[in-house]
């Protein structure tokens, strides 16, 4: 209990910018008041008081939590099943990075009094089923292709929150996470390109009909 309070204080302390009063360009930027929901409490005129959420915040937190959960669970699965070392290492990194992000999101949800989903949604269930059903030969490819799509979607989700969210702590979280997610995306794309290249070189060469003149 004490520890949790300490952590909360520490977080509040290291990110004073999170409360929307800062003129530091790196801190969350003010939103368009045209979209502020009626009844929003304000700490100063034009500044939504901390620890409130608007609709984009709630959409974000829900999708980010489910996505984060899936990253860790599918990452564990891939760390066991993947054949290629690069894919296993990538999967381990996903487990590590997304566990850390999930913890931070959990703390934020807690302090903001939001319940996080703790189960997969249909989309991620389908993805898990697809991975479980793929043969060993198909697995690496299926996992990496799925990861590319997941990270593309997460990047758009984070950008959406940065632009449309109201809760400064959540916006800050999204800003902090985005470079890492884009980095993951680049890694997955590189691995995918390598796999495609390898598959092409290993493919048995078919006799090509000679070009007629």
């Amino acid at each position, binding site marked *: 209990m004490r520890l949790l309070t300490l952590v909360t204080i520490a977080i509040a302390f290291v990110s004073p910018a999170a409360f929307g009063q800062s003129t530091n360009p790196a801190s969350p930027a003010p939103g*368009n*008041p045209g*979209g502020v929901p009626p009844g929003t409490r304000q700490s100063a005129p034009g500044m939504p008081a901390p620890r409130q959420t608007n609709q984009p915040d709630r*959409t974000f937190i829900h999708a980010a939590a489910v996505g984060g959960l899936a990253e860790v669970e599918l990452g564990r699965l891939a760390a066991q099943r993947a054949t290629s070392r690069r894919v296993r290492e990538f999967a381990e990194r996903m487990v590590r990075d997304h566990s850390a992000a999930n913890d931070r999101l959990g703390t934020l949800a807690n302090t903001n009094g939001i319940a996080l989903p703790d189960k997969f949604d249909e*989309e991620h269930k*389908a993805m898990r089923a697809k991975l479980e059903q793929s043969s060993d030969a198909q697995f690496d490819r299926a996992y990496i292709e799925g990861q590319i799509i997941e990270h593309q979607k997460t990047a758009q989700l984070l*950008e*959406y929150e*940065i632009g449309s969210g109201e809760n400064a702590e959540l916006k800050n979280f999204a800003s902090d996470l985005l*470079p890492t997610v884009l980095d993951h995306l680049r890694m997955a794309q590189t691995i995918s390109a390598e796999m495609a290249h390898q598959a092409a070189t290993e493919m048995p060469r078919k006799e090509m009909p000679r070009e007629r003149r």
Partner: protein
Amino acid sequence: MSKYPKTAAALAVASLIAVAALADPLPPDATYRPLPTQPLDVVKALDEAQKPQVMQRQQALLEQRYDLSNRPIDNAMMSGGRKPVQDGVRVRLATGVTWDSLSAMSPDEIRQRGLLPAGFMPLPHVKQATGGQVFPNQQIDEINRQESRNIRRFDIDFDLPDQFTPEFPPPIFLTTHPELGDVSHGQLLTIKNYYQLMIGIITPVQMEGLRLLLTPFPQEEFNQTEDRKSADQSLGVTCLDCHANFHTNAAFHQTPDVRPQAARFRLDTVSLRGMFNQQIHGSKRSLRSIEDFTQFEQRTAYFNGDHVSAQRKGVNLPDRFDQVPMMAQMQNIIDFPPAPKLDPLGRLDPSKATQQELAGEQVFLGKGQCAQCHMPQTSFLDNNMHDLKLERFYNVGQTVNGLVTLPDGPIKTFTLRGIKDSPPYMHDGRLLTLADTVEFFNLVLGLKLTQEEKDSLVAYMLTL
């Protein structure tokens, strides 16, 4: 035969998965403009309360990135002779590096050590979340004086210091009357004065085109609905509110071509001088004719590429067979300012140019590789888009004043004719002086130019 039901079943499963995979898209406001949730007076009060902080944030960002002091080049004026051209490199270096030590590093090293000067990165809009058109004060005041039309926003002001914008009002040169020189009489063309200024100089068709280019129409921030950023119900904006005298006043906006909002990069208004020689239009859209661009600017500069929002605020769609060609033909007679030192092929006349300018031309054509894209004989254009891949030098995805910095991707090559007249530079106005652009390309193209070569390039560009 019996194989078919199986295939069908497999397909059905596959399509189920496909449907499920699309089950959780982003909400509509990730692409479409949301309707306001509050009455205008509430929004206005909140916006006004936020404004000091919003302006301070942007000021802090500009100060961090640039040396904003007023330091003109001796004896270098813009074409109308009304404003000096600013001198020196204004982008600030990260601590511990010099321009030479920086250009000796590999892109990877610069990225990993975070050494790319922040001023080379995308420049955010003053208020990214709201975006929209922002006019410099001189334009606002002059439009108010001549037309009593209000193009001032209550939520934000123009951000760049006056010395880094084009001279105001800019001169107007016509391809149809080179002998006259500047025909603006030192005035800003508006709906009030265009007729007196142009009668006897332009044709009836051009006159009607000009009238349309000067007629205000509703725009996202300037309109009659509750969703606007002007205090009064606004008549809207005109084409030449940004393209002042067919040049630019550095009014800025956000790209209509990207979503979500946080990823929309800033756009600095381009000059319309020399449109007649340009084959592709728009830094990203690459539209193929001035007619296409003119027609579509009502959808983009005015409404951010959101035709749904436009429908509610009052859309103006100029008639393609009559109005658009007249507007286009008026734009197509706007010439570059005279460049007396250039010959018909766009090369320096050695009998008129200085040694330094000639040396600069050599760098431009040779070691600097500039002429590969900015080709002298075709108005310093290649009518192509190029991806300069700046993201080799920095980690993408950082958020700066609400803008998510992402790779620029392919951008249209801009002309360099009359370039001293159109600061700030690049599609988003991220560079303030010509010396900045030389440092930028020196790094991006890995040129390793000497200081002497850099200085000569700047001197050369002043002659264009």
